């Protein structure tokens, strides 16, 4: 790709940052780094991934609200994790985590266990145990 064809689409997902793209210039076609404000193709796929995370987090919010699952379930998705990532981050087996998604089991978790979840999710125990008032757009 030639330097003057490096996309400068000012994409939202780069949030005013620039990324380095390798491109050629001049008759010899010598390579160099061009700072790019992004390519719309990349914006589209990043938006898609972010929207999917938001969708999962929103669905989880409603499930917690209806009392079907514990707040842990929402915070997992809200922190852009899934069962696998939460299991790896906390070091707790998936089947055990699934139990913790049960509201009755969750309220009886020990302070130590709550602390373990909270720390993996980067929250305080207090934040972990409730839903945020409004469903914020991904808490990150």
């Amino acid at each position, binding site marked *: 790709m030639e330097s003057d064809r490096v996309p400068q689409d000012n994409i939202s997902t780069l*949030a005013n940052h*620039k990324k380095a793209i390798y491109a050629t210039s001049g008759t010899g076609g010598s*390579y160099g780094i061009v700072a790019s404000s992004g*390519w719309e193709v990349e914006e589209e796929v990043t938006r898609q991934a972010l929207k999917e995370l938001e969708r999962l987090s929103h669905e989880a919010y409603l499930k917690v609200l209806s009392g079907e699952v514990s707040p842990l379930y929402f915070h997992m998705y809200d922190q852009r994790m899934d069962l*696998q990532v939460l299991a790896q981050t906390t*070091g707790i087996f998936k089947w055990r985590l699934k139990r913790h998604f049960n509201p009755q089991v969750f309220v009886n978790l020990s302070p130590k266990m709550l602390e373990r979840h909270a720390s993996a999710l980067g929250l305080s125990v207090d934040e972990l145990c409730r839903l945020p008032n409004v469903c914020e757009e991904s808490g990150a």
Partner: protein
Amino acid sequence: MPKQTFEHAHSAHCESGVMSLLLSHHGLPLSEAMVFGLSNALMFAYIPFVKLGGMPLIAYRRMPKAIIKGLQKNLGLEMKMQTFSDPQKGSQALDALVAQGRIVGAQSSVFWLPYFPPEMRFHFNAHNLIVYGKEGDEYLVSDPVFETPVRCQEKALEKARFVKGVMSPKGLLYYPIKVPETIPYEIVIPKVIKKTAKAMLKTPVPVAGLSGIRALAKNIGKLAKKDRRYAKLFLGHIIRMQEEIGTGGAGFRFIYASFLQEAGTLLESSQLKEASQMMTLVGDQWREFALLIVKAIRSKKSQPIDFAALKNKLESVAAAEAEVYRKLLINFP
């Protein structure tokens, strides 16, 4: 001898960027592209049964840390690499090194680094950065994928360095302890190029190299039978791995073309320069493939997605890329 003051530079990719900066600081000026090429980092992998965030593993390069290891092996460089079980000890060790005036490479999670904008924060644990100083409770950080140096709170960096899970950093710190003064390029370059070309062409299992690309193409052809939403997410995932995750464009193919060009200049080889041009065209084709995919993702429900066209495009990219490696193998048997 290390330089007195550290200079930040903007790079495409974190690990090659960090190694380029670390080595340049220690008296061995190597561009990011040279670091990438000399460490045999170019690859392609598609492993359907390894899932990350619900999506199969797709990578356009070798595993994280392959660049650091590859440089040690191919250049006779020696790195000190330390991991820690206790976060506090890990932070103390970093502080001690920084106080000695060292610049230190560190592995961390992207998600927990506050200087990343939310749009870029995903759970990826193998991000690399350089710590080159500390002021108060803030580290001075040179993150090569950012245009300028950044700052990071002590506690935040500790969290990012000690996150658990896949490819967890375990607080990894690294810095060179023995840097070669010169590199015998006429020996090293043919060796590394041959190795990369062979790995791409001749990996027998259909998950890596060109057979990995072809396996991916085949699976794209089969997406018609899958749920449309999943198919679109899967296609988007391929392009994210190719374009978004610090690849310098076209899934590292442009960086590699840049390496071939620089290697051609060093060895005065017109064949290498030609191979570089071929690789640039291959990169352009990868970008065309990305464009086709985005058109498919944007398509309305009523429009069918032409998966066969995407499959054919990817197969032709694979064929063009194979030509480059064949040419390289002919010139460096």
